[in-house]
């Protein structure tokens, strides 16, 4: 479904991604794991077109994304739930959700999609008129995920969805990721919570200083000695 082939990414003159390739197949949950600063978020931002690779290419459903402007990526069926949520803080919950469904196909089904988001996250319905910036961290994360779902994506990219949340909410977030996949949406997830992520991932790639150093099924990597030592603290 998503194919990333040999990309190099730079911030100014500094190279942060080195010859990275990975792919995500339809229906999978694929995880990118690695330490802070390994380049995980950068990879998602590159898929979203916000940063451009200097070398290599990205294709989604067979179509190269190199020439697609960043605001068109969502039309292709890729939604991005960004790190730190990046909600529109001075807009209401409802408005944030509406902005998730701007493209015509999603807009036509906006009311319907919003009902589904509210059914999944009843807290958001209670607070539909409240400004997003005044929600608790957990509610904000649910809103960010809901906003991503509003575009009726084929693939949803999560960037550190459990960051800064209480343990109970972390559980909830991972349950949501499973639900999203169960609804037929492919998932690409970046997480620091390696154990739980590998437990739900079909496959995962380990990223170190901008390079992919390992990849395998979630289970394989959970058993991997190096991964255990570096990320699971065993």
């Amino acid at each position, binding site marked *: 479904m998503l194919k990333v082939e040999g990309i190099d990414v730079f911030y100014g003159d500094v190279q942060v991604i080195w010859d990275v390739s990975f792919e995500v197949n339809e229906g999978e949950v694929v995880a990118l794991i690695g330490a802070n600063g390994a380049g995980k978020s950068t990879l998602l931002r590159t898929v*979203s077109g*916000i940063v451009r690779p200097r070398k290599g290419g990205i294709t989604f459903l067979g179509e190269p994304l190199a020439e697609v402007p960043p*605001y068109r990526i969502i039309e292709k069926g890729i939604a991005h739930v*960004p790190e730190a949520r990046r*909600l*529109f803080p*001075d807009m209401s919950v409802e408005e944030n959700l*509406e902005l998730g469904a*701007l493209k015509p196909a999603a*807009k036509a089904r906006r009311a319907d999609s919003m009902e589904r988001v509210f059914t999944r996250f009843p807290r958001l319905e209670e607070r539909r008129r409240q400004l997003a910036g005044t929600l608790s961290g957990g509610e904000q994360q649910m809103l960010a995920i809901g906003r991503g779902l509003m575009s009726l994506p084929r693939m949803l990219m999560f960037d550190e969805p459990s960051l800064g949340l209480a343990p109970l909410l972390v559980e909830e977030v991972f349950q949501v990721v499973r639900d999203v996949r169960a609804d037929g949406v492919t998932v690409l997830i970046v997480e620091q919570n390696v154990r739980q992520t590998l437990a739900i991932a079909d496959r995962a790639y380990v990223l170190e200083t901008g390079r992919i150093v390992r990849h395998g099924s979630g289970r394989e990597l959970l058993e991997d000695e190096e991964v255990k030592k570096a990320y699971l603290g065993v």
Partner: protein
Amino acid sequence: MVQLEVFLQTLISGILLGGLYAVIGLGMTLIMGVMKIINLAHGELMMVAMYIAFWLFSLLGVDPYVSLLVTIPALFVLGVVIQRTLISPVLKVDSILPENQVILTVGIGMILANLATMFFSSDYRSTPVSYAADAWYLSDYWRSSPIELSLSVPWTVSFGFALAITAALWGFLQHTDTGKAIRATAQDKDAALMMGINVERMTMVTFGLGAALVGAAGSLFIPMYYLYPALGGKFTLIAFVITILGGLGSTQGAIIGGIILGIFESMTATYIGMGWAPVGRFVIFVACLVFLPRGVAGLMKRS
């Protein structure tokens, strides 16, 4: 009784002036919110609109209020062209700091003012409309009124248009997808891109809207104000004070800020002296920076 009459009359003039100021301030604050730069050519754009209204009146006899139909679209287009051809290319260069990008708008303002001088000379112009001196008097409607108050016809009509324009803008920003996309772009550009918002186009539309608003203000001011090429600077400053007073980028703040400034100037003119109004403007500006650095919007957020 006379004192109360003077006070109320001053308050009324202040509110009427403030409503027009709000439209000018709204244009600047919209641009500020989305582009994060202060448009220091704002008053000059208004000057351009006033010349359009002036020539329409002088050559074709078009009423200044009817000229809104021309100045609003004309300034929108001018704003879009300026944004596209001049400002956008400079904003894209990371090595030019935002505070220096602002200098470009100063240059644009100077060029507009000097072009106006070249083509139209520096003469003072006005549109002597038939209703310029007309007013509605309270005693005409309420015979036994203990005090006498009047509402100037052009000021009141201009204020009415200003209210309508403000309401239309508010409706647009709150209830249309494009309006919401503009607000989203102001709050978080990257997130807006991820939602599929064409941020570059929104920036252009915003600059066009800001110019259209100040263009409308030009048509609304010309029945009462003398027009000359250098008038822009004064209104840029007024817009700037309102933007700071309102809290950078806040539309509600700009409306309240405009009214506050209007009342303050009107009071200064009545109780201290006509010539002191610009001083009052600076006093309120400095006081705001010292005591209320986040403006009216910051105050509203706190409560």
